[in-house]
């Protein structure tokens, strides 16, 4: 298999399913009991697509990312369900097989990654290390350098700076270099977990633009994970809303933002302040996220939900299709009002 040195996505034809998460259930064992961190989550990432997972801390979005990469802590158990990349189950792979896929097929840009550079090695050499470990063929030093230079240019860094040490980079530059590293082996999927959370707003904007540009140009498939729905709105085409370990709504980003069908999505949107649009009263979400050791019965959102009825306490709503590519797990989705964007 001859490898080109082009920077590209090794995914398949755009629009075909690439990564399928099916009925994934993942628990953490603790002394107090089992934490049901991911409960029956199903979604698909298509080739060339950017999707988002949004939710509050502890809702299970990062646990999903860790499950996809199989980087879970020792006390976690994948109870059931499957993760398939190009039709191949990742859950059944042994550690060595997974290690070979990890960076090569699925790479990641995680929160605070910019602080994970080893301070005593040059940035370029650290990317070179990743290439040596994960690139399927042995490259010459010259080829490696050329590839790193190309990666640097792609993420908006001056290739000459690859000779620098991490402390000589600003936070934004380091995060760009993290993206370059994530792209180094032409992955099929990039998981970006809070990629801009620690950054200032102007730098965040630059990084998000860069990621969006790369995703479009290379046809890269990216899963964005964020607590900030504004970030998700910027960069994704489809999104899932998570609450207490469950995927409660899944749909095209514009559909979820303008016509949310789950009360949680609705309240989340209603409680997000914005600098554009008319100044409006924001609706607080009362209460606190539930304890996942003993999650609420029925729908996990019912204790905080203004639409909750007896049915919500007794029965867990399944994810049902309510429109094209739009599904929601709520008994009362028809009652949730339309938002219709900020301008209204």
């Amino acid at each position, binding site marked *: 298999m001859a490898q080109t040195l082009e920077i590209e996505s090794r995914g398949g034809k755009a629009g075909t399913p690439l990564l399928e998460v099916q009925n994934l259930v993942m628990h953490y064992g603790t002394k107090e009991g089992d934490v049901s961190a991911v409960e029956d989550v199903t979604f698909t990432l298509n080739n060339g697509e950017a999707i988002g997972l949004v939710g*509050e801390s502890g809702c299970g979005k990062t646990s999903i990312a860790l499950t996809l990469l199989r980087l879970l802590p020792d006390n976690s158990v994948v109870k059931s369900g499957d993760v398939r990349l190009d039709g191949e189950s990742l859950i059944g792979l042994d550690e060595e097989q997974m290690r070979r896929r990890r960076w090569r097929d699925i790479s990641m840009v995680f929160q605070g990654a910019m602080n994970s550079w080893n301070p005593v090695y040059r940035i370029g050499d650290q990317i070179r290390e990743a290439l040596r470990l994960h690139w399927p063929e042995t490259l010459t030093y010259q080829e490696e350098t050329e590839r790193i230079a190309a990666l640097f240019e792609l993420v908006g860094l001056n290739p000459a700076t690859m000779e620098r040490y991490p402390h000589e980079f600003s936070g934004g530059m380091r995060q760009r270099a993290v993206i370059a590293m994530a792209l180094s082996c032409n992955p099929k999927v990039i998981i970006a977990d809070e990629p801009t959370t620690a950054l200032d707003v102007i730098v*965040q*904007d630059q990084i998000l633009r860069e990621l969006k540009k790369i995703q479009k140009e290379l046809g890269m498939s990216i899963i964005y994970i964020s607590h900030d729905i*504004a970030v998700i*709105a910027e960069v994704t085409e489809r999104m899932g809303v998570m609450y207490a370990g469950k995927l409660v709504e899944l749909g095209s980003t514009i559909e979820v*933002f*303008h016509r949310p069908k789950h009360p949680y999505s609705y309240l989340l949107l209603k409680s997000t302040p914005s600098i554009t649009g008319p100044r409006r009263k*924001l609706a607080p979400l009362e209460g606190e996220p539930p304890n996942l050791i003993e999650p609420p019965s029925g729908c996990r959102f019912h204790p905080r939900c203004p639409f909750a009825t007896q049915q919500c306490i007794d029965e867990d709503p399944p994810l049902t299709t309510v429109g094209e590519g739009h599904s929601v797990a709520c008994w009362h989705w028809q009652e949730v009002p339309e938002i219709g*964007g*900020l301008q209204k």
Partner: protein
Amino acid sequence: MTEPMTDIAAKTTPLVKVENLRKLYPVSKNIFREAHDFVHAVDDINFEIAPGESLGLVGESGCGKSTTGRMLTKLTDATSGQILLDDKGELIDIAHIQRSDMRRFRRRVQMIFQDPFESLNPRRTVYDTVAESLTVQRIGRVQEREERVAELLHRVGLTPPESFLFRYPHELSGGQRQRVAIARALVIDPTFVVADEPTSMLDVSIRISIMDLMLKLADEFNVSYLYITHDLAVARYMCDRIAVMYLGKIVEIAPTEELLANPRHPYTRALLSAVPVPDPAYKRERVDIKGGISKALNPPPVCRFIERCPRATDQCRTSDHPGFDDLGNGHLVACYNL
């Protein structure tokens, strides 16, 4: 430089008036050598806050907004300048306060911190934390303090108060801790509260209830906030006016909606254009500025934004850092090329 009165401030005498406030941090100082290099964390800033008004101080990390807050609460000493606090008609200069006035000052000015997990002593109960200023200042008997703390807990929404009074911070959620921090700030009936990013560590769903609580209590207790944040959307929700800081300088102050609708300083424009909008249908205007934020280490006297400014002219390069231009409606901008 005469300080033009803003609309709100013009009605009454300001509660807080900051004049030419500076904070320089020496670099590599030791006992045997005077420092030659200084980081100009806060450099010659002026603003006013009217009674009951809340002013947002917005900027990127390292712009000096937190240092300003710390100087106003006397956690950090100012290098020069004045901070005048109106205490029942009498002006106290916080920057040069006498020891004897300290106690009175501590009753007037309080602070709410960013990280609810770090701002409460893990070894003290909610009661101890909230009652601390009452205890230190010997206000009331023990029972009165307890009642006062319970009342405050009730008013910040920790109900029933008796179930929270003797809990430790680790038994509370992030939102509850921040409510305790708010109760602590208000227990002594201050007139002015510095809030340093009080909601940035909280989850979205909790954030609004804390912001609403702070707005409600501002009315009930008649306090003014200096609301420090990096998030313009939050500042818009919380503040009557917004001041934008860049590398130790305030570059623009205006009433909130005026600033958002009509930003005049190139930095404010860049900042506003970079804020992501929670609506995928909304297309933002793109304002590009060059480079990244640097450190204000021995800055030349010219405009701080000059290296990144798309509009910089020869005047900017040769003149001192611009002073405020009053554009009316309390809109002040520090830029030569409007």
